[in-house]
């Protein structure tokens, strides 16, 4: 099929999704507007994980830690009287990026399984730190009472807030779309494909990984700040390892390495949880096998399936992830190991 046609079809598909996101929730009612807001926020968090997992080949198990930092920063700023979103949200992003810088600087010195465990450990540290914040409700968390405002525009209406979140999500997707195709994007995708080769042609991989880790942290921080606004409530659960796992599940369900996939994954994940948890509190019992089925049966997630079904191209093949690829000094030493 001609590349132009494929691109046009993908454009139509995206437009259709956007139209659904704009029109469907208000038509269904307030409950669904709030539900769609949740999807957009978790979708943004999942997108930040996709930058690391799908584009850089880094499996992080601690993104909820950064999401939570954004949520706490966003919530605290409201309580402290910084109500203007144009001030509060960038500040929450900046604070989260500083945390990401510190966490990334240490954890990116490790690889593969170690990296998973170290990011998890940092998120757990933040979780227990939040629990110990007595002034901020400790384990119970705290209520923000209200949302930020856009100066001229109050966000207390659920619909208004939803559309603001949706605009931000579209903006973030577009910025990331530019990012992954830029020169910087080529370097991080090179790291995903073959980190050793990236170093051999002259890019220091550590620094580039740190930069993308901080960028992804900023996006997770924005999502967190939006969550504090959405729920008007923050507690340590926003930093939990369960949430990190759920965000990873959203990415994998939707299609890693596609930016849109994680948002679709978030929608599916939350819809399943919502519907199933009406019937049983053991909804994970049903969701787990679904996730396994996705990995075993679907080559490239829901978004990949959607693209192929509509003839709108495909998601790049399942990315290879960062398991250690160290030079094997003894490979040649073994007789017959050479070609």
């Amino acid at each position, binding site marked *: 099929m001609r590349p132009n046609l494929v691109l046009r079809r993908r454009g139509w598909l995206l437009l259709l999704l956007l139209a659904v996101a704009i029109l469907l929730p208000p038509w269904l009612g307030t409950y669904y507007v709030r539900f769609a807001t949740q999807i957009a926020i978790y979708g943004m968090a999942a997108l930040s994980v996709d930058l690391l997992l799908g584009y850089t080949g880094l499996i992080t198990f601690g993104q909820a830690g950064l999401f939570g930092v954004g949520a706490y920063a966003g919530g605290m700023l409201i309580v402290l009287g910084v109500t203007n979103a144009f001030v509060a949200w960038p500040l929450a992003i900046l604070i989260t990026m500083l945390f990401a810088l510190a966490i990334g600087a240490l954890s990116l010195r490790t690889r593969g399984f170690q990296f998973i465990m170290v990011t998890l450990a940092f998120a757990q540290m933040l979780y227990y730190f939040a629990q110990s914040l007595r002034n901020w409700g400790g384990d119970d968390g705290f209520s923000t009472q209200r949302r930020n405002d856009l100066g001229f525009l109050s966000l207390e209406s659920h619909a208004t807030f939803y559309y603001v979140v949706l605009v931000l999500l579209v903006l973030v997707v577009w910025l990331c779309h*530019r*990012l992954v*195709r*830029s*020169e*910087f*994007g*080529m*370097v991080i*995708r*090179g790291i*995903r*494909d*073959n980190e*050793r*080769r*990236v*170093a*051999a*042609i*002259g*890019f*220091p*991989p550590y620094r*580039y990984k740190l*930069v993308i880790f901080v960028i992804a942290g900023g996006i997770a921080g924005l999502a967190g700040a939006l969550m504090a606004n959405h729920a008007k409530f923050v507690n340590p659960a926003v930093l939990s390892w369960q949430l990190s796992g759920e965000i990873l599940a959203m990415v994998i369900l939707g299609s890693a390495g596609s930016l849109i996939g994680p948002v679709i994954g978030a929608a599916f994940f939350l819809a399943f949880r919502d519907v199933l948890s009406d019937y049983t509190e053991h909804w994970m019992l049903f969701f787990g096998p679904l996730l396994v089925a996705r990995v075993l049966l679907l080559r490239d997630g829901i978004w990949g399936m959607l693209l192929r079904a509509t003839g709108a191209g495909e998601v*790049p*093949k399942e*990315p*290879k992830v960062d398991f250690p690829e*160290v*030079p094997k*000094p*003894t*490979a*040649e*030493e*073994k*007789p*017959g*190991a*050479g*070609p």
Partner: protein
Amino acid sequence: MSEFLLEIEGLRKSFGALVATDNVTLNIRTGETHALIGPNGAGKTTLVGQLTGELAPDAGHIRFAGRDITALQTADRARLGLARSFQITSIFPTFTAEENVALAVQATEPHSYRFWQPAETIERLRKPARKLLGDVGLESLGRRIAARMSHGQHRQLEIGMALATTPVMLLLDEPMAGLGMEESRAMSQLLASVKGRYTILLIEHDMDVVFSLADRITVLVGGRIVASGTPDEIRKSREVRIAYLGEDDDEFAGGLDAPG
């Protein structure tokens, strides 16, 4: 600056009881094609690892263009002009052939913290990439996804990527490995075409290629250098034959085919 581009002095590396690099001292002249040969297990790959910075030596120094690079990171060495190709194909499989080379061209720029302009539209990177693809004989395959190319084409792409970093010196780790007859011929032509334009350290089992291209040859056995000299000297050296093959053999006298 001395006449030598790469100076290896008293290099040692051991893994437990195995001494993989045993007090290696070797100087490579600017502009020469220097072949490093030796049987499997001689420690060639370990030596290359230390030259590129992936392995840290236990003792000794490496100087490149007069500068001590023993403690430098891999990426920094590449930026000084020390490029390499890998024994086992090492490319970016999800990129197109052109993107593979373009990323290597991009590596010559001071930094790549540019987040906005799509890389595919940057002619500054794409033009040299297309030219290099032509140089290594892949001009018609620029848009092919690298994972879908043949082994021989991967080997050519490897060389293209190494050349794209505008190197001073090439470390070629068995460029002929696993090539069929036709591909071998193309590769040896390619190697002959870069000879003289760069200083080359060639690790290779194919003795035809080694003896036809190398200005000097160094023989590594058991981590130690047993001989170093012109192809003629090496061919005539009885020690080399004994050390290399463990017996007196006509391998070099005939100047033919590769062992194992």
